[in-house]
């Protein structure tokens, strides 16, 4: 398992294709915060996001923040939420907006594997609940759109040494979550036979 540093947004697909499931990654540059209501607005209500998402790294989050001025926020505690609820947006994020990485906790079910492979996208697993550490890696909240969805707005964070992340699903059709589930199901058969 290799260790990589990747800067987002990416312009070269090679940056995504070099990553393999299980690899460790540290991220620099910009991260876009997004959550359930943000994506419901984009895809179910058909409202165009007022931020460029091409080559972007999306983070499943709803940050704890303090308002310090019009459209200006300071971080208090920023962590990551469960991704599985939002898996149905994966294809659209990649094909329509050019998103290259989605980061969250708990993984995506298998339906994400095919679109991620076709559109050269990756899923990064962060350590859920490790928000105190994550907050120190976010240097600044640079932009926020759709404040009326607080805290489920569209956020732009500048990050430094964001991670460590694990490649959960790579752009080559491999998913740690799929493999772990498959092995666990086999193991359950053994256990049931012993009960």
């Amino acid at each position, binding site marked *: *398992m290799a260790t990589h540093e990747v800067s987002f947004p990416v312009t070269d697909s090679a940056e995504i294709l070099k990553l393999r499931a*299980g690899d*460790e990654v540290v991220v620099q540059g910009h991260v876009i915060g997004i959550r359930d*209501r943000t994506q419901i607005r984009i895809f179910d209500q058909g409202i165009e996001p007022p931020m460029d998402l091409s080559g972007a790294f999306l983070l499943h*989050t*709803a*940050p*704890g923040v*303090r308002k310090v001025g019009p459209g200006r926020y300071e971080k*208090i*505690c*920023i*962590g*990551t*939420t*469960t991704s*599985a609820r939002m898996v149905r947006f994966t294809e659209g994020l990649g094909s329509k907006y050019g998103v290259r990485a989605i980061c969250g*906790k*708990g*993984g995506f079910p298998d339906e994400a594997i095919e679109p991620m492979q076709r559109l050269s996208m990756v899923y990064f*697993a962060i*350590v*859920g*609940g*490790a*928000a*105190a*550490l994550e*907050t*120190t890696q976010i240097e600044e909240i640079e932009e926020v759109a759709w404040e009326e969805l*607080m*805290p489920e707005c569209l956020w732009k964070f500048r990050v430094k040494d964001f991670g*460590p992340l*694990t490649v*959960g699903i790579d752009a080559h059709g491999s998913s*740690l*979550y799929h*493999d*772990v*589930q498959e*092995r*666990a*199901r086999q*193991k*359950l058969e053994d*256990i*049931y036979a012993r*009960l």
Partner: protein
Amino acid sequence: MSASVTTSNRLEEAVLEAAAYLYVWALKDIPQDLRKALAGAAEKETSVTGQRVLQTILRNVNVAEHEQNLVCQDTGIAVYYCRVGEGFPLHPARIYEALKAGTERATVEHPLRSNTVHTLTRENTGSNVGFRVPIVHWDFVPDWDGLDVKCVPKGSGSENMSFLKMCVPADGVTGIKKFVLESIVGAGGKPCPPGIVGVGIGGSADYAMHLAKEAIARPVGTRNFDPLVAQLEDELYELLNETGIGPMGLGGDVTVLSVHVEHADTHMTLNPVAVNYQCWAARRASAHVAADGTVEYERDA
């Protein structure tokens, strides 16, 4: 104003302050028994990804302490467990109001992220309180004049991984074990493993889930007083850690830190089993309020 009204106002303020303090304390400073269990998990784990996750968790706990920040951003839904002595001079109706006001005060003053929304409109109340929120569980204790309050902020990642099955008597104990195993494997990385698996057996459907929730609020690794139930806890712990789900569901040796089972007797034709998951950041904090309003905070209750 009569003397008893003054006493009761003072007590209500004491409970309010305790609730506000407990909510923030629980979110920032996880208990020693949990820290020990997490360190123990890191010693046992042999997978590369599992080690990466557990080392990050341990680092995060230290950063939270050093930065005086929350361990996890999910401030949860505020849940309180109250043991009220029959001689405690504040009526539970007033205790509830104090817990609610304390939750709101902590949320607004800190400030904490508010998670509480109307179930249909999804509109956020902005204060972490609302209709029937916070959630308070009550126990009443005869021949005592004190109040014990335990605050357990419950995050949604783990609460979403709650499961109930009305097994039939013919499913026996094997049916119970299978359901717990199936539930935790199915939950995978979503509830932030390795955490505490709470299991409630017996009673009725709603009571089994209540017991499962009570089980996750126990200090990590404590055992049920009934040896038969304690044996089930040990066995489920071993079996769940054979599944290989691992830290954050990325594969590994440590899937759960502990299994806690609470039980009640049940109807001859019932065999309910409920699973309530508690994430690795198993936050809880307790206080004892004496009849004179003195508050003592207890880390490890």
